[in-house]
């Protein structure tokens, strides 16, 4: 969204309280949704739960195309549509609910940094595994991504998405990485998160924040999704605090 549109949305958001009929849209749960989208959707659901805001989850095959930014999940609240965790957190804050208000400046900086770490490493690794690892692509991703559509659309859409993701990987320097290197990065990321969490119940104090929601979304999805190889889920150190 452009800056002006965002400011406008914030103002309108501030004017109305959270309605009862807010909905979250994602792809079809059983057959279509992929690892990375599921993680993102779960993170948003966890965040809204933590804020005690009611939300209804609706599954639509074309959720990705309905979204204003092309990414799922997105929420439909009143007459506004907001997608992705970052903007949703801002939107919820404009409505007067925030999980990170009690944090100091340095802690907020740390929280943002760790959220970027998760996006940078975990999310990119998930995308890599889904779209650039031939075994997974062939057996799982292609079939799932195009499943609601008839032939030949299912193949075309899947190939198009794969091409887009591969372009992005190449632009950020992940194009030449092997699966082992990607898993090493995931390992490093999980070690860092584990160090930061230590023995506390949540990352900051005793209250959960959006960072906890994001990490939960990703870790839970990785641990519970069946892929062709289980190396990704093996990288997560056994949860004793989750």
């Amino acid at each position: 969204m452009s800056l002006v549109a965002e400011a406008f949305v914030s103002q309108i958001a501030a004017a109305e309280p959270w309605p009862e009929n807010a909905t979250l849209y994602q792809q079809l749960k059983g057959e279509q949704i992929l690892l990375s989208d599921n993680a993102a959707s779960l993170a948003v659901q966890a965040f809204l739960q933590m804020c005690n805001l009611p939300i209804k989850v609706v599954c639509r095959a074309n959720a990705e195309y309905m979204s204003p930014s092309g990414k799922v999940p997105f929420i439909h609240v009143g007459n506004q549509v907001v997608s992705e965790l970052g903007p949703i957190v801002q939107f919820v804050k404009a409505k007067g609910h925030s999980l990170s208000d009690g944090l100091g400046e340095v802690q907020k900086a740390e929280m943002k940094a760790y959220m970027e770490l998760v996006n940078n490493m975990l999310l990119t690794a998930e995308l890599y595994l889904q779209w650039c690892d031939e075994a997974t692509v062939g057996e799982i991703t292609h079939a799932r991504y195009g499943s609601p559509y008839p032939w030949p659309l299912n193949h075309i859409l899947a190939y198009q998405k794969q091409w887009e993701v591969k372009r992005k990987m190449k632009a950020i320097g992940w194009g030449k990485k092997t699966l082992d290197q990607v898993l090493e990065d995931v390992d490093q990321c999980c070690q860092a998160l584990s160090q930061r969490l230590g023995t506390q119940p949540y990352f900051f104090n005793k209250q959960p924040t959006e960072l906890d929601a994001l990490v939960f979304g990703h870790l839970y999805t990785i641990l519970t999704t069946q892929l062709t190889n289980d190396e990704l889920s093996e990288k997560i150190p056994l949860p004793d605090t989750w």
Partner: protein
Amino acid sequence: MAAPLELSCWGGGWGLPSVHSESLVVMAYAKFCGAPLKVNVIDNTWRGSRGDVPILTTEDNMVSQPAKILNFLRKQKYNADYELSAKQGADTLAYIALLEEKLLPAVLHTFWVESDNYFTVTKPWFASQIPFPLSLILPGRMSKGALNRILLTRGQPPLYHLREVEAQIYRDAKECLNLLSNRLGTSQFFFGDTPSTLDAYVFGFLAPLYKVRFPKVQLQEHLKQLSNLCRFCDDILSSYFRLSLGEGTCYLGCASLREWGLVLK
């Protein structure tokens, strides 16, 4: 004595040992951990590759990309993070991710995409560092690579317009600079009194933005208002790079003498 480590990277200007962020990160880290690095500045001869710079060459290895080079140096026992706790190590990773996601797009845009800056400063400088036909091609390729990276990571599919993204990336970059400034506070380095990997990365990204003279300067102006970050860059430049600025010019002098075969390599 350890095998000689040679780093090939882009040269310096405007008071910096290198104008290229990634090269500067590696050079700063080497200074912090005391690694004996022989710096080969990319010059007007046809020797050496320019593609994936910075590149570290040892007797049997060639390593590219700052993260891999730093890992390699650590394995050779040149470790600037020796005194950090595990949590600080984790914070380092997180802040580096923050820099790459929030600050790097705007730095790339300021250097390579903003047409005033690119055509008056960046392109002439890089073109002057490399031999003739390549100087027509390589800067253009680097510029396209930068634009691509910005659009693919921040743009909205399917059209990927730059306009929509520009305002957003500059806003994110300013926020990132504010966060870094808050985190640094009044300390000399990010973790205590000795510099570490995070200091190298922050220096590498901020110093070119701080020192290079651009026509369009919105991000630079914002950085100049954060006095502790400016002080951070100046401190590192004066403590770790003052002596080797003399060496740097000596290398440039040697490079041209070498061309005429007057100095044996």
